[in-house]
């Protein structure tokens, strides 16, 4: 005989998350924002201006004055894009991936697809962040070796190459392959969007549980008819207009191209903020939830998105950030001269390669060492990899603080120069403009170090907090001892960051001398 459930056990909880997700304010509840984001062409509103900017940059990069401070290509890319991307990541989220004009190559992609027998499968060996990490180091090396920051022409080629790569890869492979497995810029954004104060989440997980087709992931087609009309994409689930909560139009609504399933998302890794999920969800059940910065650093979310390779990428980016800034101060050039003398070489490629290898090795050794020591103090007899995976997020926090400070330094130093730069661009095409080249700095010079030091210090504190929370989470009361190796590592990284930011800059074209 079956026992009747007691009254206390007949009521099921009304909310049961599939996984833990942030439970903060839903930004889409702001007046008009949900309706706008669910509009099919919302993303175009941001993509088209960036596409126009890219076109200006390409034209001026190829045809304009080959002087970096006076060219749209170098100014908009190395100054404004980099500065605004970290501001957006810190205050909002992955706004630049959301507005990425590279995705506007989809029209051309579809033309090319007609000539191909089928879409190809992205190689499994490249389905990890290892390939992207390699591309990142190639990119950073090329940046230094070829002086991309000083060359409008090369910068323009970089932009053209990016569009070409996005076009080729999205034509040959499934949509989203370029974003997830190739794009260095996007993966930089994914990594440091871990610091962002927003994340896509599900409003009601029970709705997701009962959802049959998961259109947020797979997409849907919707028409004002009970059955799909002729010509509707047969690969997508058909959901009639009448079944859509707060209908947002008819047609094709693609799902997440980087294979993120909304109710299981616990990080911003691989999220391009395209909001396909918001538009595709027929129940209007997707939120953009406010969360504390670093929320995901405490929850090991990258375990589901590639684990070791992803954490490796995050740690590498943090230390390459230091390298990128050190390359602009005097000690870098002194070290280069000393190394060249010691090795009896004047090969810039070799010296740069040595510096990159040394910085990478030092970074991983320091992170691994502090992580392993912490685990040992906690009595964990796990290996170095486990320790690295546990504590690696602390370095990501440090990395974002330094990248943010560095990029913001350059942005604040010369943001207003975009006005005379565009003035010169249009004047060179006949417009009666006289550029005011005195427009450059956004803030007084004496404010720069305090601002950048404050940003670095804030994220250093956040990294320390993350280390403390991880220690207490995984080791209980013993965490009070376990945290110290990582805290010392954080302090050293923070001190090094402040020292670099405080050094007088010395912008040279090459590692040994002028770039002329």
């Amino acid at each position, binding site marked *: 005989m079956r026992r009747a459930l007691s009254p206390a056990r007949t009521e099921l909880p009304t909310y049961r998350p599939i996984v833990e997700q942030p439970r903060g304010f839903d930004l889409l509840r702001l007046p008009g924002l949900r309706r706008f984001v669910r509009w099919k062409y919302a993303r175009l509103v941001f993509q088209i201006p960036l596409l126009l900017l890219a076109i200006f940059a390409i034209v001026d990069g*190829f045809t304009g004055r080959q002087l970096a401070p006076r060219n749209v290509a170098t*100014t908009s890319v190395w100054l404004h894009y980099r500065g605004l991307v970290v501001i957006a990541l810190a205050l909002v989220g992955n706004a630049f991936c959301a507005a990425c004009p590279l995705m506007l190559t989809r029209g051309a992609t579809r033309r090319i697809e007609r000539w191909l027998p089928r879409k190809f499968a992205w190689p499994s060996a490249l389905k990890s962040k290892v390939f992207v990490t390699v591309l990142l180091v190639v990119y950073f090396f090329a940046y230094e070796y070829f002086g991309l920051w000083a060359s409008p*022409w090369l910068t323009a080629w970089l932009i053209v190459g990016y569009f070409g790569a996005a076009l080729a890869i999205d034509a040959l492979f499934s949509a989203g392959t370029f974003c997830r497995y190739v794009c260095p810029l996007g993966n930089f954004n994914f990594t440091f969007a871990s610091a962002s104060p927003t994340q896509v989440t599900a409003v009601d997980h029970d709705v997701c549980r009962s959802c049959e087709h998961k259109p947020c992931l797979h997409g849907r087609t919707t028409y004002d008819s009970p059955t799909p009309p002729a010509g509707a994409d047969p690969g997508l689930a058909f959901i009639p207009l009448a079944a859509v909560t707060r209908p947002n139009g008819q047609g094709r609504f693609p799902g997440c191209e980087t294979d993120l399933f909304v109710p299981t998302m616990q990080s911003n890794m691989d999220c391009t903020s395209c909001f396909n999920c918001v538009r595709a969800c027929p129940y209007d059940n997707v939120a953009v939830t406010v969360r504390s910065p670093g929320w995901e650093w405490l929850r090991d979310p990258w375990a589901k998105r590639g684990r070791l390779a992803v954490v490796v990428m995050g740690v590498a980016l943090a230390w390459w950030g230091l390298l990128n800034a050190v390359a602009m101060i*005097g000690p870098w050039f002194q070290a280069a001269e000393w190394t060249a003398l010691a090795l009896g070489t004047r090969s810039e490629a070799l010296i740069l390669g040595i510096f990159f290898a040394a910085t990478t090795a030092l970074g991983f050794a320091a992170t691994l060492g502090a992580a392993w020591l912490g685990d040992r103090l906690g009595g964990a007899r796990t290996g170095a990899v486990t320790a690295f995976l546990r504590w690696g997020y602390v370095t990501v926090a440090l990395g974002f603080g330094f990248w943010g400070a560095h990029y913001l330094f350059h942005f604040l130093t*010369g943001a207003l120069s975009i006005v005379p730069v565009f003035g010169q661009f249009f004047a060179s095409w006949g417009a009666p403009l006289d550029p005011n080249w005195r427009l450059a700095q956004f803030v007084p010079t004496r404010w720069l170090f305090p601002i950048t030091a404050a940003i670095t210090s804030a994220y250093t504190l956040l990294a320390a907090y993350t280390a403390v929370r991880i220690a207490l989470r995984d080791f209980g009361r013993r965490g009070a001892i376990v945290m110290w190796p990582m805290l010392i590592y954080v302090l050293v990284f923070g001190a090094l960051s402040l020292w670099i930011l405080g050094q007088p*800059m010395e912008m040279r074209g090459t590692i040994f001398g002028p*770039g002329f």
Partner: protein
Amino acid sequence: MDLRFLLVAVATGMLLFGCGPERADESGPTGTMAGDTPSVQAEAPDADARASRARVELQGEPEIGPAAVLVYVLDEGEGVSGAEIEVRGDMTHAGMTPVIAPTVEVEPGLYQTEGFRFTMAGDWILTAEIVMPDGTTSATQAVVTVPAD
């Protein structure tokens, strides 16, 4: 439709490959401490007929701080008096604050900056924007590497 797309792509590619960076003799820096570059004529109705030359160079050794930049302006071998010249110092990285200074005429054809200073070590491109007495404009450049203290 596809053929037109292909033709546009090929034409665009040819255009891009055909556009190279400015050659050094147009307006680029010459790689020497004091450059002696031909002037770049922005507006010169009869520039071919005139043998006008301009040169910008640094007085003394380059170092962080105040500096005197000299601009020589000659027209058919004679110093040009009454030109309005502004010297701008740029670094090779976009966004670094430029240094802009006016000049005063020291003697016919020789102008010296007032208030110019190198604000940091590194590679600098000095550009002299010249407005001749007859209204024609030109520019000349020199490159300087300022050592760290």
